[in-house]
């Protein structure tokens, strides 16, 4: 185990990480955010899901440093009297969960389709890639609005509130797979012409083994890079959907639905309900994108910066 760690410490990856201040700061912030959001039930001062602890009389309490602030509510409360800080922590957990889940689904679909299209080529390739083109020509929001309208019509609002998280994962996952499929296909096309693939055929390996064990590992770096960007994108898609009222219900808010719920009060002076979740969302997306940029520079030696 110590040798693995030693190897990692000596690697170019680690070296370029500790010499990039932006990467370190982004990484630390991201880790902090992730840890805080997933330990929300422990560290959050209030439980926004527990309606018995919420008092409407506390509604729209301003942050603690403003006049009328309540030391119980560090960043104030929203229109229902929920503590903003706690709700944000819980909300970020939901956002991250949906973001990661959607990216796993996208990656799975995209990688499988991209590998098959790139490796077998021909008519199958044309068919799958045209499918991707069609999918890309609908915006994520359009697809999501369409599907969620159907879903809500069939199952009713109550059911929807229960299934909102898996539903959003599926919608965002289904809408964005072509990004992966195209990237993977392009790399597979380049890789499959290399002699090691031919050598693997000569050895007598089947197509599945060549695809998964030989070609896929060689296409991992572009997959990793777009994954970071796609996590940020998925979180933003979710926030946008929630903001439009099609995402997470107000009872289980994500960052997007929090921003939305505060938006009505922004002109009546209660700006904190929208602004704090907004800042958190911006920071979260920003650090993920900065880390993604750094990762792309490290994994693509052709992009060395001077």
């Amino acid at each position: 185990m110590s040798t693995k760690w030693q190897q990692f410490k000596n690697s170019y990856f680690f070296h370029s990480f500790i010499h990039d201040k932006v990467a370190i700061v982004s990484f630390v912030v991201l880790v902090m955010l992730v840890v805080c959001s997933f330990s929300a039930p422990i560290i959050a001062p209030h439980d926004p899901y527990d309606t018995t602890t919420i008092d409407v009389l506390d509604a729209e309490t301003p942050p603690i440093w403003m006049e009328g602030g309540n030391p119980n509510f560090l960043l104030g409360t929203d229109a229902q009297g929920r503590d903003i800080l706690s709700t944000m922590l819980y909300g970020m957990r939901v956002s991250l969960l949906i973001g990661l889940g959607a990216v796993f689904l996208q990656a799975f679909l995209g990688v499988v389709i991209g590998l098959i299209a790139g490796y077998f080529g021909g008519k199958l390739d044309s068919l799958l890639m045209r499918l991707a083109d069609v999918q890309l020509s609908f915006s994520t929001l359009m697809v999501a609005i369409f599907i969620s309208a159907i879903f809500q019509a069939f199952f009713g609002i109550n059911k929807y509130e229960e299934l909102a998280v898996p539903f959003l994962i599926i919608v965002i996952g289904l809408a964005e797979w072509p990004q992966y499929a195209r990237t993977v296909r392009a790399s597979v096309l380049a890789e499959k012409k290399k002699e090691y693939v031919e050598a693997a055929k000569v050895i007598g390996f089947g197509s599945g083994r060549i695809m998964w064990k030989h070609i896929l590992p060689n296409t991992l770096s572009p997959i990793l890079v777009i994954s970071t960007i796609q996590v940020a994108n998925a979180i933003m898609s979710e926030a946008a959907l929630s903001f439009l009222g099609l995402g997470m219900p107000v009872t289980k808010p994500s960052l997007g639905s929090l921003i939305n719920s505060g938006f009505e009060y922004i002109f009546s002076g209660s700006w904190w309900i929208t602004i704090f979740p907004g800042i958190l969302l911006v920071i979260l997306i920003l650090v993920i994108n900065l880390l993604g940029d750094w990762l792309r520079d490290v994994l693509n030696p052709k992009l060395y910066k001077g």
Partner: protein
Amino acid sequence: MDKLLEVKDLVVKFALRTGTLTALNGINFSLLPGERMGLVGESGAGKSVAGFSIINLISKPGFIAGGEVIFEGEDISKYNFEQMRSIRGNKISMIFQDPMMTLNPVLTIGTQMTETLLAHKQMSKEEATEIAIECLKKVYIPSPETRLKQYPHEFSGGMRQRIVIAISLLTTPKLIIADEPTTALDVTIQAEIMDLLLELCIKEKMGLILITHDLGVVSQTTQKIAVMYAGRIVEKGKTLDIITNPKHPYTQGLIKALPQTHKKGEKLYQIPGIMPNLNQIPSGCPFHPRCTFKKDICSQIEPSLKSVDKGEVACHLYA
């Protein structure tokens, strides 16, 4: 002795948009167990296509249009994909030109070696690792146990080609097809690799088909030679006979073109002209436009292989 491999009237065509190209025009040769043969010719003569067609791995527009490839008594050119997979890498191995490219850059040598074994034989991972270590020892890789955990980029070019050879040895094949195995290596490493290959073929009693344009390499390694031109075999025979007494004008040209130490400072001989494009092969003998001995008949009738002395030649000069 029963033949290990017999290629009979093998025809390979490529279906292109502009029409069908004939890359191999009915070639015949055979190999006894443990026998080593060289396939020689210029670029584009069809040597590599011949090698690949034996294991039925010609890339897409190409296909076997006729003939038989009889390996251990069975016509493997008619095998389906699954049957063929049990032959490839198991009974017939192949070594490629460029060892930088044939090893997967993201898998360790150990993974690539054991994977080959596990794909073909019923055995545990530990047994496979043991055989892999054995094979690395055979190709003189020092401290094979630690080497197994390394990636291809941690090896030099010559070592990589030795690892490729070790991989081809894993399943103790009956036949190795080596497609220009030393072209990407420098001369000293070339000699080292060829010596190794020769030694292993003799020790393990493996047949070898050496595809190359380097007559020097062939003369030191093989027992017989088939010279190819424009998808045909134009001369076959014992290596010694062909090197010392070539019959076909093309073979004579190839041998004259070899650099020789006692003729320092002289210009190297060149066969005039270039190999014809496969879609416009001249009528009659395909070599006649470049031939210095051509007669009228050469542009009209294509000569077939006939026994001359101890070998076989396709040339009207010996009719």
